[in-house]
Structures are given as structure tokens and as C-alpha cells.
């Protein structure tokens, strides 16, 4: 198996022969919403992503090519379970999901941003509140606002 990173793919004309057949991959994390979480041995849920071995970028969910530098040297990486709510909205009309539901952008402490379902008491929500990952028995995941007493 050859080095597959794009950065090292330059080849001299003399060495051109039959090229390996370019194959599709099943997914680039564009559909696999539920596989974005895993429960660690200590029981804590974690978002799962990919860390680029070339430029260090962290992407959630897992993928096989770096959206920053196009390297394929990616490793599975845990992206954490806590972050800050950048903004949110409760959606009442939608072509893609039964309503109502609340979505928000969560800026993870690990540096990645994810769109997530927000559950729990929506009265606690405002931009910049702390949120944490919550995983249901069916592997569905969401973020909920961290209560004051919880964070102290």
C-alpha cells in the first residue's frame, strides 16, 4: 500500500505505470449522525472525530480526508463532551424533521464546532451558556445546558 497523502503524490514520468484503482468510500461523515458519539470505558460519552496527522486539524464527525489540508493521514480522535452554545433556535416548520425541535451551534472545548440538537429546559438557553453532551439509550445524542450548581 503506497503513501496516499496528496503532498507526496508527485511522480516522475518515467515511473508512471498502471495506477491503483481509485475507489469510493462509504461516507465522509455527511450522513453518520449517530456514529458521532461513543461511550468511553469510564462511562462518559464523547463526540468522535478525526485528527489530521499532517496539520493537526480536528474534525467532527469522523472522516477520511482533512478538510483543511486534504491529507488522508487521519486518526480517530475524541472531541470531548463539553462546550459553549454559540446560538440556537427552536424550529417550528421543517422539511427534514418532525417539529418542534431545538438546534444549536456548540463550540466544543476541543476547538471544533458542531450543530447539535439541544434538549432539556429551553428557558435555560442563551448564547454563551455552557452545554454538555447527553446520550440516550438509543445512541441518539444532544447537548443540554449546564445548570449553575452543576458547573460550580
Amino acid at each position, binding site marked *: 500500500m503506497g503513501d496516499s497523502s496528496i503532498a507526496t503524490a508527485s511522480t516522475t514520468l518515467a515511473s508512471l505505470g498502471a495506477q491503483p484503482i481509485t475507489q469510493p468510500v462509504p461516507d465522509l*461523515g*455527511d*450522513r453518520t*449522525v449517530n456514529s458521532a458519539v461513543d461511550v468511553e470505558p469510564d462511562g462518559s460519552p464523547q463526540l468522535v472525530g478525526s485528527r489530521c496527522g499532517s496539520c493537526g*486539524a*480536528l*474534525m*467532527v*464527525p469522523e472522516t477520511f480526508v482533512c*478538510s*483543511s489540508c486534504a491529507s488522508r493521514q487521519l486518526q480517530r480522535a475524541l472531541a470531548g463532551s463539553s462546550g459553549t452554545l*454559540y*446560538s*440556537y*433556535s*427552536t*424550529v*417550528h*416548520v*421543517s*422539511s*427534514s*424533521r418532525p417539529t418542534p*425541535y431545538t*438546534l*444549536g*451551534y456548540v*463550540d466544543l472545548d476541543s*476547538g*471544533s*464546532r458542531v*450543530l*447539535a*440538537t439541544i434538549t432539556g429546559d429551553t428557558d435555560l438557553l*442563551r*448564547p*454563551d451558556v455552557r452545554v454538555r453532551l447527553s446520550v440516550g439509550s438509543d445512541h441518539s445524542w444532544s447537548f443540554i445546558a449546564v445548570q449553575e450548581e452543576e458547573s460550580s
Partner: protein
Amino acid sequence: MSDDVYVVGAAMIPMGRHRDSSHAGLAVPAVLDALASARTAPKSVEAVYCGTAFGGMLTGQRIVKHVGMGGIPVLNVDNACSGGASAVHEAYRAIADGHYDVVLVVGIDKLTQFGGGTLPLVGEDWEVSQGMVMPALYAMRARRYMHERDAKPADLAEVSVKARRHGARNPYAQYRKEVTVEEVLGSRMIADPLTLLQCCPTGDGAAAVVLASDRHRRRSPGPAMRIRASVLHSGTPTAGFRDMLRPEITYQSASDAQEQAALPTSEVDLVELHDAFTIAELVYYEALGLCAPGESLDFLRRGSTTYGGDVVVNPSGGLISKGHPVGASGVAQVVEVFWQLTGQAGDRQVQGARLGLTHVTGGGVSNLDHGACTVHIFEAAS
């Protein structure tokens, strides 16, 4: 040095719910009237660019065959809401590069085929698969804006009030009834804090413009405007933080347009911008350079963006009032600016207008601000 490119003819149908019309039924009247206003026969057109998001295969060919056009290149352009303006951009480049003298651009979409509700986005997207819809994206932008700028829902509603006031004077607008702040806030919630009257409606529309080289314009003189800038950008992917109040795709497009036109965007007399939702207009005042960053709310409150102000923003009523049949909108904006700069805008004429700017963004894609953004600057041809 590229050749000068002019818009020499323009037409559109009133936007609305035209359920009984086919795509060709919507577009052919606009094509014929645009060609007539350009004093150009269908057979003189050397290429067609058709912008559409949901028109289906070969939309352009299905339209222009009805007026006997064929043999020439017909290219269908999808860039979501920016499709029509992207088609204008491609036509501009083809003429500027010397390939053609006369090109027809069509923008069309028929959203009533979906029966209402939010636009169907592509399910093979991480955010869409979690329930992202366009109103939710803009609602999050609105929530953040209110948080950072200490703005109230009533401030957002003022954008709709202005849009409807402008649209009331536009016979091509889907909604022509003025509304109050109370009515806007009292309409049903779509994506909190955005209510129904803060969202562009579902509708059908078609618009057409004729672009020409200077050589063709001199052969057939008449009302015209010169394209001073034509810019197309795609969104830059980022896996981390994005400032939703500083949409990079519009900042970059506006910056490039200023450079190409060699004039600051603050000098234009009128702007047709992408007000798909109220919050968008406020954010884009700043991104397009019409006011300083952080000042959009005051800019609106002072009346700077209506008749008598610094720049009339969305004299047509914009997407909120005029309507937003996705692929048609970018071309319809050019039609409006053409009418304004050639003194044909009737009751909504911006007096003495010489410079106009159009702006459309397109699409909801994970990790991008938007998928596409197009900015054009036009100047009345003397």
C-alpha cells in the same frame, strides 16, 4: 484588459403562486420581453445561461426551444439561491473574454411544486441530517445578533416593515400589502426568533436579461447599464468557530467587487441584497460595506436604507416582499437595477440613480458560511 459588458434588456413576470404554469410557461414571456426590450431577435443570441435550483434537467433548453432557439450553447447553472446571479456571472465572463456579443440569461424556479414549507435541502449533509433548514440557520444568526448587539425582535421586524413598504409600490412583488411591527411579531413562529413575516415567501418566478458587448450595443443603441463588477465566491470550509455576524463569503465578494469596479460600495445609489430573512439584511449592510461593522441597527433606524437615505436597499421589496423563487432571484435583482438605472422603475424609482449593486448568497452546507455568493455592480450607460 477584458471587454466592457452591458445589460441591454430585461424583463420578469410578477412573482407569486403560479401553480398552473409550467417552467416554460413562467419563463418564455420573460425571455420574449427581455429580448424585445433589448431590440434583439432570438436568432441573434449566441449562448444561453439558465440559473435554477429545482427546475429539473435541461431547464434552459425546455424554455428557449419555444422561441426557436437552438444549436447554440445552453448551459444550466445551479448554485442554489445564487444560481441566477451565477448565470449572469458566467455570461459576463464569456462576453468579457470575447467569446460572444449577445447572451441571454434566464433565472427560474417554481417552488409551489413542493406545496409550501421550508426548501428541501440535500439530505447527504451532516447538518441537514440533524434537521438544519434555512430558517434555522438565519434564526441562529438572529439570536446571536440580538445577543451581541442588544437588539430586540422589534428591531428585526423593522426590516420587514421597510421591505413591505417598498414592495407595496412594485407591481412585480408577491406581497404588496404594508405591515406593522406588531403584525410581523404576531405572525406565527417559524424558527425562533423569526416569525412568518420575517421570512421570504414560497413562490414561482422567472426573469431574463440580455447581456451584450459594446460592439453589439453600438449596433443597436438603447437603454443600457454597464457591468462594473461581477464576482462569484464559494464558501471557505472551516471545522471550527465561525462568526455568524461576519459572513466571510459576502465580505470577500464585496471586497473583490469594490476592487473590480474601482469604487467603494458605499457610493452606490441602490442595492438589491439577499434578505431571505430579516436578520440577513442587517448583517449584509455591514458585510457589503454600506455601513461600518457594528452600526447596522442604527443604519436601519435612521432611515439610511430607504428613499431619502444614503442608499435605497431593496427598492423592489427584496426577497421578503417581492418573493424568492430561488434561481430566479439573482436575475430578478438585475432586472430591478436595470429598470432603476434606466429610469423605468415607475412609482418606486430611486431618483437620479446611476450606480446599483446586487447580492445573493446560496445554500446551507455544513462547515460553510454559505455555498455561493454573487455580487454585481452596475452603472447607467451614458
